[in-house]
């Protein structure tokens, strides 16, 4: 896209998100008109309306936006730093590591009794950091430093291992826990309420703010270590800080929604196509694109087979897979032509 048109992308997203918000808040078993929705949002709804719109749908929509933003930003940083356009938090084993901690918590405390919603993101952060460190250490060769290829291979292997363990644990559980965790593992915005919004919000806000402040560093790290050293970036320290941010964002999201993996891959990719690779614009656009994608996916997930629902992660994958096939075909065409 032409450089001067790039800022319109941001404006377009800021129009599309409220539009998706209204469609989503209106979608569901009970159908309200737009005027009713506005009335309820203004605080003039009756008891039932308030419960459906303000207690069920609103927090779920906000969570979808936050989760989308979190996974998208996490993917954006990891893609930039590893210089691998196909990387995402799932690939570094972050989602799996975070997931197993959440799973252990559920097993030990029971599925529904989530008392400490606010502590859960910290717990999953520990899990994510441990697996992340193991994968990073396994991928570091003494002479050559960290190899992107080994990072991906080790990540996929460890992730598969953890997922297998998780599935085994889930099989041993009773039916209600089993059903809940199976859904969570596929990525679903479960049990959405305001508490979860409040638990996730600070992580995302701090993450975005930090990343926008660091956008210049991110720009330069994208060009590789040698160029970054030459321009005076303290490469190792900066990478650790940014990767930690990526891990924290993904871990917090996993605690709330399970692993919704395609967003971290798709949103940054799409955003780069739209606004280029300058991170000052890319970071906000990426967060909004991710949020919008998950919001759309979640709206589809909870309406398409009413009154039951499909896990959001599966809808995201259904949208994401064709997109990537399309991308690969386009790449192939480009190489054939040139």
């Amino acid at each position, binding site marked *: 896209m032409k450089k001067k048109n790039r800022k319109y992308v941001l404006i377009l997203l800021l129009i599309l998100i409220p539009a998706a918000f209204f469609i989503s808040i209106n979608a569901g078993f009970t159908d309200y008109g737009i005027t009713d929705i506005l009335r309820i949002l203004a605080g003039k709804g009756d008891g039932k309306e308030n419960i459906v719109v303000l207690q069920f749908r609103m927090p779920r929509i906000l969570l979808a936006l936050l989760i989308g933003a979190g996974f998208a930003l996490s993917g954006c940083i990891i893609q930039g730093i590893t210089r691998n356009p196909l990387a995402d938090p799932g690939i570094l084993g972050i989602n799996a590591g975070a997931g197993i901690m959440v799973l252990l918590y559920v097993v030990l405390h029971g599925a529904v009794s989530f008392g400490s919603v606010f502590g859960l993101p910290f717990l999953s952060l520990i899990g994510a950091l441990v697996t992340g460190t193991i994968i990073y250490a396994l991928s570091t060769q003494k*002479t050559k430093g960290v190899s992107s290829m080994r990072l991906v291979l080790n990540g996929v292997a460890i992730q598969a291992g953890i997922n297998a363990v998780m599935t085994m644990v889930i099989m041993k559980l009773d039916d209600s826990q089993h059903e809940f965790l199976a859904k969570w593992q596929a990525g679903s915005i479960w049990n959405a309420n305001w508490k979860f919004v409040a638990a996730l919000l600070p992580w995302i806000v701090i993450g975005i703010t930090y990343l926008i402040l660091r956008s*210049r560093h991110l720009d330069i790290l994208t060009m590789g270590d040698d160029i970054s050293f*030459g321009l005076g970036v303290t490469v190792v320290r900066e990478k650790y800080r940014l990767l930690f941010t990526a891990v924290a964002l993904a871990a917090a999201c996993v605690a709330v929604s399970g692993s919704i993996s395609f967003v971290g891959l798709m949103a940054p990719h799409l955003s*780069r196509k739209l606004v280029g*690779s*300058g991170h000052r614009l890319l970071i906000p656009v990426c967060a909004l694109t991710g949020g919008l994608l998950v919001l759309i996916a979640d709206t589809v997930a909870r309406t398409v087979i009413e009154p039951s629902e499909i896990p959001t992660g599966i809808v995201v994958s259904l949208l994401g897979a064709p997109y990537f096939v399309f991308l690969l075909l386009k790449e192939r065409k480009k190489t054939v032509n040139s």
Partner: protein
Amino acid sequence: MKKGIRTENIKAAYGEKVIIEELSISIPMGQITTIIGPNGCGKSTFLKTLGRILGIKKGYIYLDGEEIHRLPTRELAKKLAILPQAPQAPDGLTVEELVSYGRFPYQKGLGRLTGEDKEIVSWAIEATGLKGLEEQATSDLSGGQRQRVWIAMALAQETEVILLDEPTTYLDMAYQLEILELLEDLNKVHGCTILMVLHDLNLASKFADHMIAFREGRVIKAGTPGEVMNKETLKEVFQIDAAIVTDPVSARPICMSYQLLNKEKNRSKVKKGA
């Protein structure tokens, strides 16, 4: 304060593999210095240690009398720019954006470009003959243009020293000359000290004020092109028997033809292999 780059007994290694052992050398300021040597002789490694991309195990590197590893990395980036071999920019990055990254060491906080930054960026773009291409994506440029964008980025760093690792690799002959003539201009007009690794001996001789020949992590010979580009040095450095003549245009020594010293040995190897 002593101007210039000087190394004192430096040792550089990748893990256990020692590439450079006990190297002490001075690089003259305000001149173009070219480094030549066979593959794996440590010439790129040497450049990387000067640009502190690779740490040294022992010894000291001084820039204008200051030890570079004691300087904050941003301060060093204001004095010394380094372009690695075949650098790659992300897709869609425009010429102006890439060149403006050269201002990074000077920026604070959010890093908005000041008026001064913008002036220097447009000067660097003009000096490298890229005017009119500011909004082009670097990925759409020719190889020679792209290399000039990287040089413009280094220029925007406003350093007295620019290190380049094989700036002409993968370029056609005309583009190779174009890049080297640009660097020569920068040296003559702006007084930049240029230190570069070059693969092509004749180009290295043609554009250098000072030459350094490396072999196995050691300096075999350093001096004027006349002192380095001769039969004896090339024999020791590359194990070749070179025919040296004088370039009618530049009056510099060039290698017209060469053959392997141990040709017979190679032949017998082939026979054995077959």
